[in-house]
């Protein structure tokens, strides 16, 4: 049986990828951030998942505005790296798991989550920066990746509660797959940040800390945060945190927090990283 063993929450700030790709990781600005991810990288090297389900958002790269899917599951064999405006990141192509992805879609739709099926898709920093942060810079990614793209670009994003429930349905779907697989689910984006308008640069460490705390202590409380509260308290782009709730929903009722890191800034972002193991 396939099993989800843990969840990883992490920011996916594009500047983090650019810093690594351009050899700036050792600079004083970046060094504390990359040092803070070292324990998470070690955890990942020990955990060695067969499959990662990557909950992230596309930033107008795979999807233009012709079609805006709320939940899109990547069912392709592989996913090329997008040129977001400065050339594609120099990272390996992302290998999918079409058979398992197809199974997930079938199970989820019958469970009343109407997924969009995506058979060709480029992936952007939302997906590749978390891979880099947790797996480093290998010649090939060491596991298969199923992308789950959530619309957080056009308001409204799906609610935190809806995301959490989708996560619960994903757990059920994974557990009905016969092959023995170790699965880790990523929830990416956030934490508090705003990158637009005169209010750009907003951060809210108190909001972020309470969010990190309650991922293990009281996730139901987090599912009741209304969209407006994310926007007002934690910045217009902090709505990405609903994707961490999707990840949390896949982990079952009890989790143990085994690692946490928090750092400001990466460009305009308050960066968070958490590892939650299923218990």
């Amino acid at each position, binding site marked *: 049986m396939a099993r989800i063993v843990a969840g990883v929450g992490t920011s996916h700030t594009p500047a983090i990828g650019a810093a690594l790709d351009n050899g700036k990781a050792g600079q004083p600005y970046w060094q504390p951030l990359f040092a803070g991810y070292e324990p998470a990288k070690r955890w990942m090297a020990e955990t060695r998942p067969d499959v990662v389900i990557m909950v992230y958002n596309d930033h107008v790269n795979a999807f233009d505005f012709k079609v805006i899917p709320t939940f899109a599951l990547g069912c392709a064999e592989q996913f090329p790296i997008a040129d977001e405006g400065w050339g594609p990141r120099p990272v390996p192509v992302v290998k999918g798991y079409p058979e398992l992805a197809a199974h997930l879609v079938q199970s989820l739709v019958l469970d009343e989550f109407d997924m969009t099926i995506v058979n060709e898709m480029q992936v952007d920093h939302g997906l590749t920066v978390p891979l880099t942060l947790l797996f480093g810079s290998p010649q090939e990614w060491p596991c298969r990746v199923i992308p789950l793209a959530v619309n957080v670009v056009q308001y409204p994003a799906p609610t935190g509660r809806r995301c959490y429930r989708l996560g619960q349905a994903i757990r059920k779907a994974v557990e009905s797959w016969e092959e023995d697989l170790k699965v880790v689910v990523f929830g990416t984006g956030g934490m508090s940040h705003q990158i637009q308008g005169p*209010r750009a640069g907003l951060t809210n460490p108190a909001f972020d800390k309470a969010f990190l705390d309650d991922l293990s202590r009281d996730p139901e409380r987090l599912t009741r945060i209304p969209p407006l509260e994310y926007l007002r308290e934690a910045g217009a782009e902090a709505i990405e945190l609903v994707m961490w709730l999707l990840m949390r929903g896949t982990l079952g009722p009890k989790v143990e927090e085994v690692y946490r890191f928090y750092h400001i*800034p990466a460009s305009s972002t308050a960066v968070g990283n958490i590892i939650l193991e299923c218990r």
Partner: protein
Amino acid sequence: MVADKPYEDIPGTWIFDAQRARAGYHLNQFLYTLMTDANRKAFLADERSYLANFKLTDAQREAVLGRDWNRLLELGAVVYALAKLAFTDGRSYQYMASQMTGMTEKEYVDMMLSGGRSPEGWRSKSEREKH
């Protein structure tokens, strides 16, 4: 405050909602074309001619030419698409964000290094006026 758009009360912020997305459709589709090197070069070589291929309003066109970032947000550009214009100019997200705040890039970086902008005074337009 508009009854069904409570987020319009957040100062210094343009939430990319369905109405703004509708108004900005062609603007964002133009920005989306800046994902290839050939298109970036063609745009920079003759911006007006390139823009003539898209059904922009006069205000949107002038705001693109003037890199009037906040005006572009107001006219329906979504920030992630707008970033492609900044990248085409050889700039970063951080540069674009600093321009939106009216700070120099250095002032903006310093603010972020000191922990970012506190939400105090920035939660609502009425709170902003008191500040």
